[in-house]
């Protein structure tokens, strides 16, 4: 009997008869209620414009790259290039097809970015790792060049800069800080929810199988090439929407140089520090990367302002920032999200460790 069980699938009566209902995520729900209802009333312009909006957009960009790198295992340093595609495509739709409402233009911009990502994902059929990284680097430089070289993309403006033509939703003007914050928050919430379901779905599990060992994945019948290209497309969709939000909801303007290689590295650091293969990690990583320098700068000025040369304070901040990154990664190579999870586990049994 026991050796039979190796060969045959478990009999039906051994399978669980009732599925465990998914627990309602009370924590996330509370956070969302605070973010949607509380923050716009409590936070001032400075918090909305300079801290929360860029934090949310960078989290979304991190999420996009994490789907590609953390889940599907394909390295990329071309994230900012795909963000640029999203920004310039959304701009083109808003400008040239004025009947399109903003959400549709955003979606269409994301779709164009997805198509471009799909094309640049084709080399992943043949090459992996560092070699693939080199092709995404080429994508980064190519896309930057395209948006500098061809004036059609920026409506022949002499400076090569684009600005949001209008930010309106169902006739409401949303160009104020609260409007832009709520727009960003809604988009990020929706896409995060989609991503969470995506990585738990068959597609996400196939990606993880490819990430862990692509030969094994191919052996069990996963179309590896197709899934890799799909990962590039989905990731670029997210990045494209993040790029459009960066340009229109945060800065209100963009040019090719807003999406340079440094932005790509910034997003890569977000997922490395936050945690690869995790959705929450992007938010933690984005908070670390975008908020810590501002906090350090404020703290530096409050503590040392006036007594020490500001240039020195800035260098000191860089040292602290770098040291913190190294410390965190040495302590927990899987990122801050793992560190926090470990902390939670320990607190759950505190003070009795055993």
């Amino acid at each position, binding site marked *: 009997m026991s050796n039979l069980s190796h060969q045959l699938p478990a009999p039906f009566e051994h399978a669980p008869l009732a599925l465990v209902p998914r627990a309602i995520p009370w924590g996330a729900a509370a956070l969302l209620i605070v973010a949607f209802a509380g923050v716009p009333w409590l936070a001032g*312009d*400075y918090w909305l*414009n*300079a*801290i929360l909006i*860029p934090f949310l957009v960078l989290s979304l960009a991190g999420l996009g790259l994490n789907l590609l790198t953390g889940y599907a295992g394909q390295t990329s340093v071309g994230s900012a290039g795909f963000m640029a595609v999203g920004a310039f495509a959304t701009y083109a739709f808003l400008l040239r097809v004025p009947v399109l409402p903003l959400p549709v233009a955003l979606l269409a911009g994301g779709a164009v970015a997805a198509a471009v990502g799909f094309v640049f994902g084709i080399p992943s059929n043949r090459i992996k790792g560092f070699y693939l990284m080199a092709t995404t680097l080429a994508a980064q430089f190519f896309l930057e060049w395209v948006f*500098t070289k061809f004036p059609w993309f920026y409506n022949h403006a*002499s*400076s*090569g*800069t684009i*600005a949001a033509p209008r930010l309106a939703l169902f006739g409401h003007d949303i*160009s*104020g800080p609260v409007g832009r914050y709520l727009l960003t928050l809604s988009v990020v919430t929706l896409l995060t929810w989609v991503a969470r379901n995506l990585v738990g779905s068959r597609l996400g599990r196939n990606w993880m199988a490819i990430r862990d060992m692509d030969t094994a994945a191919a052996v069990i019948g996963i179309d590896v090439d197709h899934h890799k290209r799909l990962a590039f497309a989905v990731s670029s969709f997210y990045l494209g929407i993040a790029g459009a939000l960066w340009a229109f909801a*945060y*800065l*209100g*303007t963009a*040019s090719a*140089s*807003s999406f340079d290689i440094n932005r790509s590295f910034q997003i890569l650091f977000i997922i490395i520090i936050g945690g690869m293969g995790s959705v929450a990690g992007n938010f933690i990583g984005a908070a670390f990367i975008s908020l810590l320098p*501002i906090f350090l*700068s404020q703290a530096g*000025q*409050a*503590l040392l*302002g006036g007594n020490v*040369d*500001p*240039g020195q*304070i*800035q*260098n000191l*901040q*860089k040292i602290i920032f770098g040291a913190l990154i190294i410390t965190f990664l040495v302590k927990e190579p899987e990122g801050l999200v793992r560190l926090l999870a470990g902390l939670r586990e320990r607190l759950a049994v505190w003070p009795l460790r055993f």
Partner: protein
Amino acid sequence: MSNILKRTLIAATLAASVLGVNAASAAANEQFIPLPTYRVGPYASSGIPWWAGVIDYLRYVNEVEGGVDGVKLVWKECETEWSTDRIVECYERYKKGDNGAPTAFFFTHSTPASYALMDKGVADRIPLVDPAGGRTESTDGSVFPYAFPLLLNYYSQASVGINYIAQKEGGFDKLKGKKIVTVFHDSAYGRETQAPMALLAKKYGFENIQIPVADPGNEQSAQWRQVRQIKPDWVFLRTWGVSTPVGIKTAARFGIPVDRLIGDVWAGSEADVLPAGPAAKGYQAIAPFPGGAGFEIHKRLKKFILDAGKSDLKDPKFFGSVYYNIGLINAAMAVEALRAGHKKFGNRPLNGEEGRWAFEHLDVTDAPEGDRFRRPAAETQAVVQRARGRWRRARPAMGRQEVGAGD
């Protein structure tokens, strides 16, 4: 009872001073000036002398003149590394002023940041000041009420260049049939003069040839070989950063006479020509802010700020350098604008809306303290020439005689 009160007071004072919140000094009579500096990062070599010039001037006004009409200036720096999002963050942090002192204007000091803040400035009623840069169209104040691209915009830079060439050639009618090549940094900044050059070429009948140099411009042989084949009469050099010295050197290698090169505002500082070495002797550039430490203000700064050890400049070698001087002129413009505002609103700190009025009524030609700079506005059309290691004025601006640099 009084003992307890006293102790509480002492404790509170201690706590306040420890926290750095000096509530007592948040006087009503202070004007706040946010400074988005860049002393670190790729543009630090221009940022360090530039902001030192601004701060030294503000310090001079505060300490020697007792503020602007008795209103003390206070300022805080945010280090931005010239990145647009950090400049936007700084703007948001300080747009409502600091510690009770209001903000009357914001130096954006970066063309991308000027674009990014354009709409925010209107919404928040904060004037954005970006001398010799910014968005060209924003010169039209009826459309862009809160943008002030002071001194020169990119159209006027092209125009000054062509006027100077015409003068050298002996009149605008002599420009007909001449070949004028523009070698430009292929970026928003470099492309801004394409439209005015096309207009001027049509007007005066010269041949307008535009040759782009891709960022960063470390290698320009192809471009200058092309220039050599064209055999131009004049070359307008609109490069930035490292592409300027490389351009000057490469031009010399291809046998293009250096006195036929005219740099624009951002291609005419010490940092641009010193690396080019002897090849740069005779190079000329447009400057709204001539170099040199021979102006009246430099004597006063030297006496009260530099020699008193209060200067922001770590390396005194840069005292009087082109970028230090534009810092001085920026600060002077702001101070004179505040003075103009005080005439209307009284001698008190101004808010952004009053600041806009002040900048609109900024008139430095007859300012009572105008002799400090000998009319900075008039300097805007000077073309300076580099010879014997120093910058000197190639043409007296608007009929005025004094020479800026030490030779």
